């Protein structure tokens, strides 16, 4: 019996103690017609050796040597120590740290995480994680609407340069809460927002700005933040935490800094893994801490005055506040945050800065190599972090298919979600991409484009 330790003797003894004849009798409160479901469609159980072989074959099927896709998820080097530590049973198989005294390991780690994230974003406080980057933005929007007492509306402006999938997720989540989503009514200029577009923000509760934006471009975040604030809107920054090792933190944007900084934590030690589990982070100002969704850990003292850590501000949460909670979130992404905390500790500020610069440099080299190919050109010219939008002389999809057959994932095809942009390709290089990789990709792309 897989994972069940009961011997025949145990079963007999336990049934005797309970005073029933067999295990089925324990289900006698389930009305007869509902009992004994048919499970004929299920396969028989497998020994570990069989599933091991199956999974190894499947994993091998999905391997691809070279990846130049970003678009919200990035292939980085993750130190071996990160996951060797993170999957230790004491982290891996613990529950949410409800019993603080028996969970000081996880709790202290989360306090360290909150401190690192606050430092990285330049904000006062951080929660202990949300599901992913997209839902973090949705939660940030709900939070801003609650917190912004100046604005009378429930109208939120999303940057036109925000990740299109984030936009979809936000819509799905806030749709039923009477929040009006609007796109910043601004002409796109070289792939970045024009600050003049914020002149007529109409009673906005919040404005969402992504830096670097979906096209990899850097936004004029200082001016945008100040303009939004001037209009009485809160500013929500959607940021790549790795980029913040190099770029100005949202807490310092404009004259006052943003109100909420959030985003996808994946670049901090989380493998690509088909899209998850990742983690969302959310940082804010002290003033708004009680409007924050998700778990928060606080430092306190015990009966003897010794320092310890505990979940705090639980009065915001669903298990206490129920229908009046700041969010319905309960289980979040604790193990991912464990990995990220270890990752950030290993890299440190200087290590992260070097990784960020290497990503940028390799992306510049990639773009230079690819745009040497006749007909391939950069769509925008302004500064980027580690992605740039290219235009191919032909539709991207068949080219990408050819490259995939050669073990190269060439980029994110904008035509995938946006008809009319079938020739546009968003490419990305990170620190794991070598100059040889770039040369190889360029050579294969040249051939694929010529063949197409």
């Amino acid at each position, binding site marked *: 019996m897989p994972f069940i330790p009961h011997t025949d003797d145990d079963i007999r003894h336990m049934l005797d103690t309970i005073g029933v004849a067999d295990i089925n009798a324990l*289900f006698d409160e389930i009305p007869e017609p509902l009992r004994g479901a048919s499970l004929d469609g299920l396969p028989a159980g497998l020994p570990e050796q069989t599933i091991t072989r199956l999974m190894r074959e499947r994993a091998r099927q999905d391997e691809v040597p070279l990846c130049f896709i970003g678009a919200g998820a990035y292939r980085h080097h993750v130190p071996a120590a990160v996951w060797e530590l993170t999957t230790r049973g004491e982290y891996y198989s613990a529950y949410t740290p409800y019993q603080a005294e028996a969970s000081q390991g996880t709790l202290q780690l989360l306090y360290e995480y909150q401190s690192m994230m606050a430092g990285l974003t330049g904000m006062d406080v951080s929660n202990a994680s949300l599901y992913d980057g997209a839902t973090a933005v949705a939660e940030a929007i709900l939070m801003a609407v609650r917190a912004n007492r100046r604005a009378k509306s429930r109208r939120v402006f999303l940057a036109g340069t925000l990740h299109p999938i984030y936009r*979809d997720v936000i819509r799905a989540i806030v749709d039923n809460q009477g929040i009006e989503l609007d796109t910043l009514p601004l002409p796109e200029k070289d792939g970045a927002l024009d600050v003049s577009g914020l002149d007529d923000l109409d009673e906005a509760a919040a404005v969402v700005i992504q830096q670097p934006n979906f096209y990899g471009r850097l936004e004029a975040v200082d001016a945008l933040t100040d303009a939004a604030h001037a209009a009485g809107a809160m500013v929500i920054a959607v940021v790549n935490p790795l980029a913040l090792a190099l770029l100005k933190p949202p807490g310092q944007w404009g004259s006052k800094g943003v109100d909420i900084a959030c985003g996808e934590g994946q670049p901090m030690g989380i493998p690509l893994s088909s899209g998850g589990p990742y983690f969302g982070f959310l940082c804010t100002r002290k003033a708004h801490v009680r409007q924050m969704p998700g778990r928060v850990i606080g430092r306190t003292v015990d009966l003897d005055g010794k320092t310890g850590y505990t979940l705090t501000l639980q009065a915001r949460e669903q298990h206490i506040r129920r229908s009046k909670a700041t969010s319905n979130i309960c289980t979040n992404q604790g193990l991912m945050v464990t990995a990220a905390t270890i990752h950030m500790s290993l890299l440190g500020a200087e290590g992260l800065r070097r990784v960020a610069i290497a990503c940028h440099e390799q992306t510049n080299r990639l773009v230079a190599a690819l745009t040497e190919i006749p007909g391939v050109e950069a769509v925008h010219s302004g500064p980027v972090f580690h992605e740039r939008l290219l235009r191919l002389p032909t539709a991207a999809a068949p080219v990408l298919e050819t490259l995939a057959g050669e073990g190269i994932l060439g980029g994110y095809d904008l035509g995938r979600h946006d008809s009319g942009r079938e020739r546009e390709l968003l490419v990305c290089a990170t620190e794991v991409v070598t100059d040889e990789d770039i040369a190889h990709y360029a050579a294969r792309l040249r051939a694929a484009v010529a063949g197409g």
Partner: protein
Amino acid sequence: REDKLIFEQSSPGRRATVQAPAADLATPGDIPAEHLRSDAPLMPEVSELQVVRHYTRLSQRNFSIDTHFYPLGSCTMKYNPRASNRLAMLPGFLDRHPWGPASHGQGYMACVWELQEMLAEVTGLDGCSLTPMAGAQGEFAGVAMIRAYHRSRNDDARTEILVPDAAHGTNPATAVMCGYTVREIPTDSDGDVDMEALREAVGPKTAGIMLTNPSTLGVFERRIKEMADLVHGAGGLLYYDGANLNAILGKARPGDMGFDVIHINLHKTFSTPHGGGGPGAGAIGVGKRLLPFMPLPVVERAEDGSYQWLTEKERPQTIGRLSAFMGNAGVILRAYVYARMLGREGMIRVSEFATLNANYVMTRLREEGFQVWFRNRRASHEFIISFRREAKEYGITAMDVAKRLLDYGYHAPTTYFPLLVPECLLIEPTETETREELDGFVEAMVAIRKEGMENIDTLKGAPYTMPVRRLDEVRAAKELDLVWHPAAPVESDAQPKRSNG
């Protein structure tokens, strides 16, 4: 030394050098200065050994399944197979980009599709989406689908979701996030939903009802069919909160009970790890009526046996996407491995032995004189005892017992939930624990009550053997200290542990 923060072990200029590109590249000249950071963010400056040592030692300050019996009610803390972890972390899975083409995702997608099919079978429903990233997101998806369903029929008068008073906090919180008002339904003295009250509540405003069955009270909702007929009859739909699915897995199916939509906590019933607070996965299953509204993505198998993602094109009525990519893929892989190892027979045994263990501990505790809250009911996979009597007579609270259990080497059961039972512990042993472990737990409970009756201070001071004693939670919430600052008052360095014998 043991409790020093990683920041307090930092020294300026120290680095784990092999972990970053070696070259000290100049700040890129093509990024305008206005975009650049002028200060270095607060991060520890430590060596690789310091990191490994710190987080190894920190880990030892946790209770976990791998180290302790953890009978946390409603949380299903059972053994997380190591194979699930190892196989989900094969390089081919870890390195796969979420936007990678389907041609380079057939291995992963085969797992997703098969798990969708298995979950549909085991819940008696017609389709599954694995995208929700936790139970609460599964709930959200479910209620959002109910709303989308009514809206699709232009049935806009339905503004209420019914929720029993024993429900998890996520239920009402979710209903509100979906734009509904919540109407609470009381519980009768046997632990079933109060049918009279339900009848009164159900009506044209009813969008649906959210139920956990067995309920959070640890008992099976016996009139479930009656309730389903009542709600369906009024045009509402039934939502099944799968938190307690472990209790009936393979023995009874929510679909057969009349539920229209369900979420499954893969991190409970399908034994993916809780990870100290996630990641979980809140896969949903739906009946035919709700199929068009399922959240994306979903994997479909084509005629030729290949797999593909369903998009908005094929499912125009979808409630949309709940995550940027495709949910907690790695968790899904772990659940898949577990499900395949269990197979048909294994799944039935899960609920059988979870129920056997719960009823055994309940019986033993009752025999030892503890107050089992629903004396005349079977336990499901969990049950409630109350210290109301002991609290009154001796001052022994449920929290005292919980804290003292830690000294005995047992994680505490869930305390003070469900809210409607005074001084309660909700105890869920799970099927993977041995009789010896259960007996040890019962003996600890007996010993602790005796200690409390003899000298209540023994319990009030507990725990004694943990890294810290009972923490001041009021201070934590009042004097918020959420972030370390170099300037913050630091406790004087802990001295090396000493003892004078």
